[in-house]
């Protein structure tokens, strides 16, 4: 019995940091409507900075002062970020905000390595809390007890702040109606900045307080952000009480899950999250969200199928692409095969997010499942390549069918967070279930059959499949199914009113996109001859998002251009710099801020402007007067 109580207390102690970070995320979201992906990075910065400061400053005052100073310094850094970056994107679509803050995360990761080096850093023990208390023969660190007491105190302070101060009243008002607060004479800019500062302070404090318990490491940002997303999805975005309850719940599930399923304790958390989402899609303490903001511009320039001339041009491009093996060597062909595979991957995500309006942050899950599907079939069942390629992607389909059922119940940021959480679950299974997946060592020796063995043959195979998949997805965009999907994207309510079952349509789209991604993954396994958990990882999911974004979210063909440009750039970048994340993060941030329409979108805008300069004014004068 004593053992279980101790386990319970350990869980409570872990909840402290989780609560601090999650409440910070929730507060920021409440007012600014931004889900700050970089929150994990601020948490990590808090930990590293606290490490340095507590090492330099001596004594108890030095330690505690160092912790608080670290959190304050990171909050000041957060204010800078808010003023330079976030103020430019408050009115952008949610996806862009998530991506920009993810780009920031990538940059901070490399900066942390630059400053503190790649090794884990174990901090000082907290003065006054070095020992442990004996509890019926079990040891409880006193620092854990300190953390257990701290979180309800922080909760109480936040409650007082929001209920008893003018600032708190203004923040709560802004959470509900930003414009009205401005119309009452309150400067939103500074309100937003101060809210962001508080949120970042809480995240950094959470990181700093972890120092005596765990070593600071440069993976801690992504680890915590996934847990935090799960916490806010369960507790309800925007609710501080929800963050507290859910942080305790998730931490306890982790603490006891480890006893029950030592390897895959995350499954328990996942089950709870699934149940909560079915019963209350907006979380235990959250409020039903207003419908997500529409992507701007879609109604202004409707999509159309390719004209005859454009089709001819496409065929011309394909002929040139097919002739590539005649002029280039095997390295170029391998790179070209990889690009073709990523065209499939990006096109599948584009189908989901541009056509379906569902921006997934975990699309790599289905790519990776396709790859693992092939590896299982080839290595364990010894199937021939053709069979593997046909059946392997079905694992992606299966995953998309199961996860898709849950995620389409949500929309907007909740959808993005849940897809990310599911992808992380797939990743942890791939990473931890060593007996089946080989864990970090992956599955090696997945080689193509002789007929597809050469670089040229494999390239033709990849190109052929890419053309088929892209063509199939394109046909679907302009099919009745595609119309229904786009109708649901543009107005869920109106399409439901004309008899479209929106959830079912979206679920179908999710499965189609997952299967297409699985096809890409299947080819990828054969290209590399191996499968690793990386194929399911967050960074791959984000790669796909950046490809679609780079090409242009609002275009039909942007994903293809984006995939080619991004992949080529990426391969080139990795061979030239050690700080690819820094460069990549900066590129992402730049795209979001400077070129939100992407390459193809920008070209299209220029074309339209040149083609019909008079038309826009006619349109304007014909438009109905509305209040």
């Amino acid at each position: 019995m004593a053992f279980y109580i101790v386990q319970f207390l350990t869980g409570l102690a872990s909840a402290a940091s989780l609560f601090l970070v999650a409440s910070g995320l929730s507060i920021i979201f409440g007012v600014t409507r931004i889900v700050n992906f970089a929150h994990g990075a601020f948490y990590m910065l808090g930990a590293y900075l606290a490490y340095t400061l507590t090492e330099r400053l001596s004594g108890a005052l030095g330690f505690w002062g160092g912790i608080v100073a670290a959190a304050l310094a990171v909050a000041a850094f957060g204010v800078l970020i808010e003023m330079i970056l976030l103020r430019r994107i408050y009115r952008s679509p949610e996806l862009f905000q998530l991506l920009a803050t993810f780009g920031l995360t990538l940059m901070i990761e490399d900066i942390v390595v630059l400053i503190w080096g790649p090794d884990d850093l174990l901090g000082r023990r907290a003065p006054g809390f070095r020992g442990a208390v004996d509890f019926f023969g079990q040891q409880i660190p006193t620092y854990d007890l300190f953390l257990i007491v701290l979180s309800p105190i922080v909760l109480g302070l936040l409650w007082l702040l929001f209920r008893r101060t003018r600032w708190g009243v203004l923040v709560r008002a802004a959470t509900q109606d930003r414009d009205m607060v401005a119309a009452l004479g309150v400067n939103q800019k500074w309100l937003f900045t101060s809210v962001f500062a508080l949120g970042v302070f809480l995240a950094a404090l959470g990181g700093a307080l972890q120092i005596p318990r765990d070593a600071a490491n440069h993976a801690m940002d992504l680890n915590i952000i996934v847990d935090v997303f799960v916490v806010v999805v369960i507790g309800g975005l925007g609710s501080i009480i929800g963050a507290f309850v859910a942080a305790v719940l998730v931490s306890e599930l982790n603490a006891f899950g480890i006893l029950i399923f030592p390897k895959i304790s995350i499954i328990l958390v996942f089950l709870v999250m699934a149940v909560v989402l079915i019963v209350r899609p907006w979380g235990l303490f959250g409020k039903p969200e207003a419908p997500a903001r529409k992507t701007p511009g879609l109604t202004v320039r409707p999509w159309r199928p390719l004209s005859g001339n454009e089709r001819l041009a496409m065929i011309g491009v394909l002929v040139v692409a097919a002739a590539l093996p005649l002029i280039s060597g095997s390295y170029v062909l391998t790179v070209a095969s990889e690009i073709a595979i990523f065209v499939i991957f990006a096109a599948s995500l584009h189908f989901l997010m541009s056509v379906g309006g569902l921006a997934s942050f975990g699309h790599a899950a289905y790519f990776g499942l396709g790859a693992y599907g092939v590896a299982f079939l080839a290595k364990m069942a010894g199937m021939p390549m053709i069979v593997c390629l046909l059946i392997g992607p079905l694992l992606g389909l299966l995953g998309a069918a199961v996860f898709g059922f849950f995620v389409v119940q949500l929309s907007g940021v909740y959808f993005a967070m849940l897809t990310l959480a599911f992808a992380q679950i797939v990743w942890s299974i791939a990473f931890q279930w060593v007996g089946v997946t080989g864990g970090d060592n992956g599955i090696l020796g997945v080689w193509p059959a002789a007929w597809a063995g050469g670089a040229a043959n494999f390239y033709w195979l990849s190109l052929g499949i890419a053309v088929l998949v892209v063509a199939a997805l394109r046909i679907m965009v302009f099919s009745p199914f595609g119309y229904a999907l786009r109708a649901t994207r543009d107005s869920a309510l109106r399409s439901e009113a004309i008899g479209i079952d929106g959830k079912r349509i979206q679920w179908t789209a999710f499965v189609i996109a997952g299967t297409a991604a699985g096809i890409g993954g299947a080819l990828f396994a054969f290209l590399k001859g191996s499968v690793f958990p990386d194929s399911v990882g967050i960074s791959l999911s984000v790669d796909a998002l950046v490809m679609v974004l780079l090409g242009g979210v609002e275009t039909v063909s942007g994903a293809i251009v984006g995939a080619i440009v991004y992949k080529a750039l990426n391969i080139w970048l990795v061979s030239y710099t050690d700080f690819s994340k820094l460069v990549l993060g900066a590129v992402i941030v730049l795209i979001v801020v400077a070129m939100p329409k992407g390459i193809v979108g920008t070209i299209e805008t220029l074309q339209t402007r040149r083609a019909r300069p008079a038309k826009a004014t006619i349109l304007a004068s014909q438009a109905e007067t509305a209040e």
Partner: protein
Amino acid sequence: MKLSVQALNSYYGPAHILFDVGLEVDSGEVVALLGRNGAGKSTTFRSIVGLVEQREGRIVFEGRDVSAEPTHAIVRSGLGYVPEERRIFTDLTVEENLEVGRQPPRPNAPQWTREKLFTLFPNLGEMKNRPGGRMSGGEQQMLTIARTLMGNPSLVLLDEPSEGLSPKIVEQMVEAIMIMKQEGVSIVVSEQNLHFANLISDRAYIIERGRICFSGTMKELEARPDIRDAHLAV
């Protein structure tokens, strides 16, 4: 001249909504902006306080062109705005709603306190701690006006204050507006209800399809039944 709006043009995306709208309000005046649903009344108000992003024209308030300033700065200079949809903060109590509107006193405008507003709207005084979401439509309407008055404005834009209210509450509203006027607040009130406008206003403008098509005293408007029938639903 308290407020002068000159050649105001507003757009929502590609749609041109207001065409060269001009309005003038003298100190202490109550001016009605009349027009049918969708004529452009709310857009005019939203444009004046800067809530419509695409707008052109001059908005001179107390001798200063405020058209380039952000919403909060315009409001802070003493130009209060009461939106049509009321937009109460439903999670906040009556007192907290008033707190959001509170601004420092202004030398050229009457000063309002909670206590003073609770005598103006006695209903509100009885429900200080009730969340805004659990109030009737009439009580919410009073709260929005009281909330804006907490900013001690010298001019208030009142967007359809009588809409959807029972005759008894409308009566109270008329009373409240007359008291505001006595205190020295200039008021622009948008209305579809000519009767209500007659009770409170000195002058009127009529707006139709985003254009001002009549301007004159209430007497002049009464003498022109043709204009009234053409542009107002009676």
